[in-house]
């Protein structure tokens, strides 16, 4: 049922090269307006990375989790503290370690998945969401005893060069996202991904075939939290440019879950499509509100409409296309006759 590619086809490699050329050459050469980088491309890539993490635990391992923003907060504040407290720690090192710290939280809050599933597990992961954000908020040490509530993120420095302009930050983000996405794609194709999917489709059968549920589930939670942690650190350092626990509230967790579901469960590119949709739809809606109705519609009403549309789409996709936009895109392509080989 789920599309699994045994090996990369030539089409995949061509797609990859096209995307790389687009991401590293065409976009930086054609777009000079900083707004595009700092308000669209950077948050999109960061959230897509978090969505890849959510995809691993929810789309591949089938564990319903609603704590992505909590792990992002853990990653973001870990990164802040590492850079603050360990002199000469390179940014990349801090990024990796903060991912690992988030992964530790992922294992801790993934433990209930060994006993329960579905809605039960979701409530258990809500604990991580509320607990992590509370912990960061209440223990001054995490915020370096800053009382204003908003901490400015440090500058990103890699090999002595500091990355401050939007396009520099874009490069940092896209390099990290590309590397981690490639790793994720390989993981889901390999034995780890097979185990996840086996557990997702029928955990009892998987167990009786010798797949260790303990290892598989916790591995999925850990890797997912690692991705969310790195994404959270990037999100805070390149997009928000500040650190505040409020930015990682439950709404963000819901958003990331929506990205994965609308984008398509069990596909990596679904995470990117979903993130783009969730991020761009409000922008488009605001644009319509401003140009067509000349701002006569209240901003709060627009955001309510946005909520209604997301919710309705979720229902519609569940009914008509549970595999989301990624599958929709595939079907459209094959209808037009792009994918004749299948």
């Amino acid at each position, binding site marked *: 049922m789920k599309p699994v590619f045994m090996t990369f086809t030539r089409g995949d490699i061509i797609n990859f090269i096209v995307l790389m050329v687009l991401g590293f050459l065409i976009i930086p050469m054609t777009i000079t307006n900083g707004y595009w980088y700092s308000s669209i491309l950077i948050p999109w890539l960061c959230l897509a990375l978090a969505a890849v993490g959510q995809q691993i635990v929810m789309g591949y391992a089938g564990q319903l989790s609603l704590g992505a923003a909590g792990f992002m907060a853990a990653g973001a504040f870990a990164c802040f503290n590492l850079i603050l407290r360990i002199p000469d720690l390179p940014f990349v090192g801090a990024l990796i370690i903060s991912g690992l710290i988030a992964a530790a939280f992922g294992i801790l809050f993934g433990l209930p998945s060994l006993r329960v599933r579905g809605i039960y597990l979701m*409530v258990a992961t809500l604990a991580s969401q509320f607990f992590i954000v509370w912990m960061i908020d209440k223990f001054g040490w995490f915020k370096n005893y800053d009382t204003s509530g908003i901490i400015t993120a440090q500058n990103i420095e890699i090999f002595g060069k500091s990355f401050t302009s939007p396009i520099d930050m874009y490069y940092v983000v896209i390099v990290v996202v590309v590397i981690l996405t490639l790793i994720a794609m390989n993981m889901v194709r390999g034995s780890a991904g097979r185990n996840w999917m086996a557990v997702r489709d029928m955990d009892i059968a998987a167990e009786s075939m010798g797949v260790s549920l303990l290892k598989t589930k916790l591995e999925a939670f850990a890797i997912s939290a690692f991705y969310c942690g790195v994404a959270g650190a990037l999100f805070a350092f390149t997009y928000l440019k500040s650190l505040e626990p409020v930015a990682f509230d439950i709404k963000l967790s819901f958003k990331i879950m929506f990205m994965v579901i609308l984008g398509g469960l069990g596909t990596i590119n679904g995470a990117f499509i979903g993130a783009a949709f969730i991020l761009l739809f409000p922008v488009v809606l605001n644009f319509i509100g401003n140009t067509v109705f000349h701002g006569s519609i209240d901003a709060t009403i627009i955001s309510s409409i946005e909520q*209604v549309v997301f919710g309705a789409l979720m229902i519609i996709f569940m009914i008509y296309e549970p595999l989301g936009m990624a599958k929709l895109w595939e079907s459209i392509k094959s209808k037009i006759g792009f994918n004749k080989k299948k």
Partner: protein
Amino acid sequence: MISELLFFMEVLVAGLLSGTMYSLVALGFVLIYKASSTFNFAQGAMVFFAVLSFVGLMEFGIPFSVAFVLTIFLMIAVGLATERLVLRPLMNQSEDTLLMATIGLGFVLEGLAQAVWGVEVRRLDLGIKDSPIPWIADNLQLFISALDVTAGLVATTMIIGLTLLFKYTKIGLGLRSVADDAGAASSIGIPLKHIMLLVWSAAGVVALVAGMMWGARAGVQFALIDLALKALPVLIIGGFSSIPGAIIGGLLIGAVEKILEVYIGPYFGGGIEGWAPYVLAIFFLLYRPEGLFGEKIIRRV
């Protein structure tokens, strides 16, 4: 010593009574779960939707009782639409799919309510003060809010009523049979549609009452959704299909979170209430995943 004990009693009673409010929200979940084995994540949004519509109607100058009846009709309409547009097309889908669909439904209801009625915080005056009852304060030295007591009484009445309905009426029997096996129930002539309509209406009424209690305390505002989320740990502790479970789970969560907040909270700057119920739920999940009164979860291969 005596004053400490009294203070503890006061905290405990306040916790228990505010716990009944969680129970009220949880009750709506249980009703729908019992009848259709669907976990209705949108119940929290229904609470918000119901009470916001109620307050909105009252703002038009519609009297209390008429607004109450109109909102009940509105909730029945919401139930009907949900059954028709969401649940029926998803019949026989996996539990996770249904859950995600009801999360979507929750967002639709929240958004709709805010688009129609606006986002500002509204006050809801039920004519019951959220202040200590003088008689109890004078005689027992306990400060217990009148609103809490009312909420407790309302919740108890509703729970007794619903339990009786489930246990001793023909409708209740039909309901239980539908919950057990919808296909078999409809084949022996139990009107599935009527039962579903009834359950969703009942859940709507429960949502409205819960919303009114919460709204009278905290104002009618979006934060109600977060409060309603706390009904989830209540359900895990009480069991998804048990009405007494919902009340005991609610009481337990209410009491524990208040006690933790009052006695341990100050050491950490407060806010323990925000996560304590969920952590408590995790401990329950580890020891008793089916909840206190839930049916044992048996999965077939």
